[in-house]
């Protein structure tokens, strides 16, 4: 039920980007997993963006904004988001009440004595147009040529001998942790990656395996394991190896079945 309603909203032409792929033309019988729906919902940058989408979808003349159908659709959307327990920004609800207010004002009989009564929709229309203007501007900025993508800056190209003895910085362990937490928060802003916290022991083991391999042709698989570490140690080493293979950093080689397995740097 919920999916069908949403279907209406998304089917028309929303081009949500998921993992870089456009999922605009999905066959009708395809089930959309909830996390994909979430991505589609997240495509909206706020209530104004959602309203603009609804208006565009219906080819409505914005200067004659039909408040009733738009309000209904907007509310429908909000309820889907709530059903999905999507963390709904309060701003969406503020907009809902603004719409309701405009609607009720429009339903009131026009009092002729107040000259030049402003159209209750005027302010909303103005905001929508203003927002569209900056949305366009943001797309223009996105299209501008930028460093490292469209041109390349030569910076710091020359090695300069350090004469002074380096001073060891004074860093507390918590600062390090907080710095990483900060960086993860920030990383959300740059939309190209997903960062998952992995257990440090696996990461550490990856580094130590690479160090062991550095300068060597190969190492026998079995030699990477230290039995004294017990089961957990073995598992950590194994996971680290898998991760290294996944990141194409090492190769696992076995010349014939049952023969010795070797690990080499790729």
């Amino acid at each position, binding site marked *: 039920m919920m999916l069908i309603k949403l279907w209406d909203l998304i089917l028309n032409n929303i081009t949500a980007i998921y993992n870089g792929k456009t999922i605009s033309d999905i066959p009708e019988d395809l089930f959309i997993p909830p996390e994909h729906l979430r991505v589609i919902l997240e495509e909206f940058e706020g209530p104004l963006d959602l309203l603009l989408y609804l208006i565009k979808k219906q080819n409505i003349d914005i200067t004659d904004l039909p408040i009733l159908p738009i309000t209904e659709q907007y509310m429908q959307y909000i309820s889907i988001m709530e059903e999905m327990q999507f963390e709904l920004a309060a701003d969406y609800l503020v907009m809902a009440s603004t719409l309701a207010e405009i609607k009720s004002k429009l339903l009131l009989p026009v009092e002729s004595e107040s000259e030049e009564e402003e159209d209750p929709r005027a302010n909303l229309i103005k905001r929508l147009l203003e927002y569209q203007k900056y949305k366009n501007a943001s797309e223009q900025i996105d299209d501008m040529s930028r460093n490292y993508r*469209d041109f390349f800056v030569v910076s710091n190209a020359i090695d300069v001998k350090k004469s002074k003895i380096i001073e060891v910085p004074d860093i507390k362990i918590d600062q390090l942790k907080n710095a990483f937490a900060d960086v993860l928060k920030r990383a959300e802003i740059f939309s190209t990656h997903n960062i998952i916290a992995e257990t440090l022991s696996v990461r550490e083991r990856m580094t130590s395996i690479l160090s062991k391999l550095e300068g060597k042709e190969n190492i026998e698989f079995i030699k990477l394991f230290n039995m004294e570490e017990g089961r957990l140690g073995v598992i950590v080493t194994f996971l680290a190896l898998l991760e290294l293979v996944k990141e194409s950093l090492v190769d696992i080689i076995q010349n014939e079945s049952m023969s010795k397995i070797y690990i080499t740097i790729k």
Partner: protein
Amino acid sequence: MKYTLENTIECLLLVSDEPLSLINIIKILDDNSISKKQIEKAIDNLNQEYKNKAIHISKVASGYRYQAKNGLEGYIAKLKDKGTNKFSKAFLETIAIIAYKQPVTRGDIEEIRGIAVNSNIIRTLIELEWIKVVGHKESPGKPELFGTTTKFLDYFNKNKLSDLPEISDVDSI
């Protein structure tokens, strides 16, 4: 001076992390007899010398820097192991509003976008040194007013704010 003015400027620009303005260069050289004109001339001479080379000195908002000329992007891309520098829509909208409407407060940005400003975005913009606090609005709470910096323009290879693409008012959607 052991080297010509040209050779000295060449070395300084290549050593520097950031673009150097004429004033920066004069300060470093610490020689009253050298004028801005002379430095500009030396930079012209260098670019003349680089005519067939794949690099040149380019002028951006905060000064002069070396850039690769077109034609080697394919090689450089391999060299750089870069991310794609994609920015989220929220990030782009925020910087667009600041760039085109500056000076603006957080409240102004919220008003236009219709949604609360993500503090991480503002923090990132400040750390990137793309924006800075340029003053405080004369209103309750004295909110900070943000404006863009020369570093923001540098990133997009622009000299001044008016080099940004023009935007016009929207009257239909």
